């Protein structure tokens, strides 16, 4: 599992992904942690198959008892099917996940972890002195979907938005936006169902000060590529599966 520190300040952000040992027939995914002095938030913990390498990788940054919070943007198995395993490993943790999906996500196993339902209009997660904003991103692609914005680190974790299918050895940041577009186009057109939802999300996030867009699959966007991505997505017609 590759680990890349993407923010280092009073707290840290680390991106995990490109696991070389993952089975070929499951999609590669990015996981993130936000690490403060005594706590660790795991964003998009991943699927069951990734649990062991992910746990082993997180143990480079935090002891298991300090993994206190998990976040799932939506209900998909590549996002959170490992929940039943985290549930047995963590003794004192909370899962922040959409209220609408609670009854569904609990199918993965959630007995000891406290499920903190996120209301439709979002909320904030407080991790010691760090306040993370939970931004609504409904219908992108899931009907109840959230992203995480860190105003200090200026990172927006966007779940499925900005995702692309990449090989295990791909770089973690977009290097040439114009060629990267082709890796994203079909995914966004087919997975994202609503131009109206896309418009509402873009209007909301254009007001945020963002250095890095961090999606759940593929490469992250930084610097000028953030605006390039928003402009590209804004112009894209989605919902083409009908």
């Amino acid at each position: 599992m590759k680990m890349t520190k993407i923010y280092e300040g009073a707290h840290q952000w680390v991106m995990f992904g490109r696991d070389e040992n993952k089975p070929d027939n499951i999609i590669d995914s990015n996981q993130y942690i936000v690490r403060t002095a005594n706590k660790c938030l795991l964003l998009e913990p991943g699927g069951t198959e990734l649990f062991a390498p992910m746990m082993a990788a997180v143990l480079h940054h935090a002891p298991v008892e300090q993994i206190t919070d998990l976040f799932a943007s939506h209900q998909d198995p590549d996002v959170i099917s490992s929940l039943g395993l985290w549930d047995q490993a963590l003794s004192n943790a909370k899962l922040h996940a959409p209220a609408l999906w609670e009854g569904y996500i609990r199918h993965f196993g959630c007995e000891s972890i406290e499920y903190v339902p996120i209301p439709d209009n979002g909320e904030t997660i407080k991790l010691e002195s760090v306040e993370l904003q939970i931004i609504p991103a409904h219908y992108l692609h899931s009907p109840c979907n959230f992203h995480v914005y860190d105003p200090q680190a200026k990172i927006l974790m966007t779940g499925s938005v900005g995702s692309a299918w990449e090989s295990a050895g791909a770089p973690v940041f977009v290097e040439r936006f114009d060629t990267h577009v082709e890796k994203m186009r079909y995914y966004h057109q087919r997975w994202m169902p609503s131009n109206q939802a896309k418009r509402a999300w873009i209007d909301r996030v254009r007001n945020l000060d963002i250095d890095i867009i961090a999606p759940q699959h593929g490469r992250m966007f930084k610097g000028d590529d953030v605006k390039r991505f928003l402009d590209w997505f804004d112009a894209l017609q989605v919902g083409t599966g009908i």
Partner: protein
Amino acid sequence: MNSQTKSQFIAVASITSELSAVMVVAKEISLAAANAKAIAFRAGDKAKGFQPITDFINELAKETIELVTKINVYAILLYRLTVDEYRRTAAYNRFEQALKLANTNGARYADSMLDPTAHAKTVMQDCQRQFKRDVTQLLGQLEAVMHHARAARVIAANSRIEASQAGEYLQSLQAVAESVDKAAHTIHDNVQRCRIALSIYRNS
């Protein structure tokens, strides 16, 4: 999921299926008892010896139904325990894998996984022991149903003897005896299949 776990799931799930067939048959015996009672009543003195047998048949059918109902509840609990054991075992295996990976790669906090892994192992072993205890208990309950099936076959044999003295009612009462005997065979065979499927998991 390994083949032993698959077999365990199949064995536990098959109990409910076999027992639902037993339930149908036990209800048939109950009906046969009611039918026999009516025939014996019409036959009067000619079926005098048959009349108390009908009560035995009815009682046996009622007890079998009650027993199977209880076993079914128990079988559902055993199925839940099987699911739990599967989850616990999967977790323990993944924790061990994570610990090994963390140690191999020199993760700074690898040792913090020692306690969760040890705990997962204890819980998994508790589940396995509980499963064996519950299987042993279930086998005991299934033995009680087998005992009822054997008793039904004895009653069927007695019914045949009594039917032979019932004159023009002989055929009707023999049919009752046959249906009880057939039902007893079916119950015996179905329950025996459950016992064979479960016996490899019992406490030694």
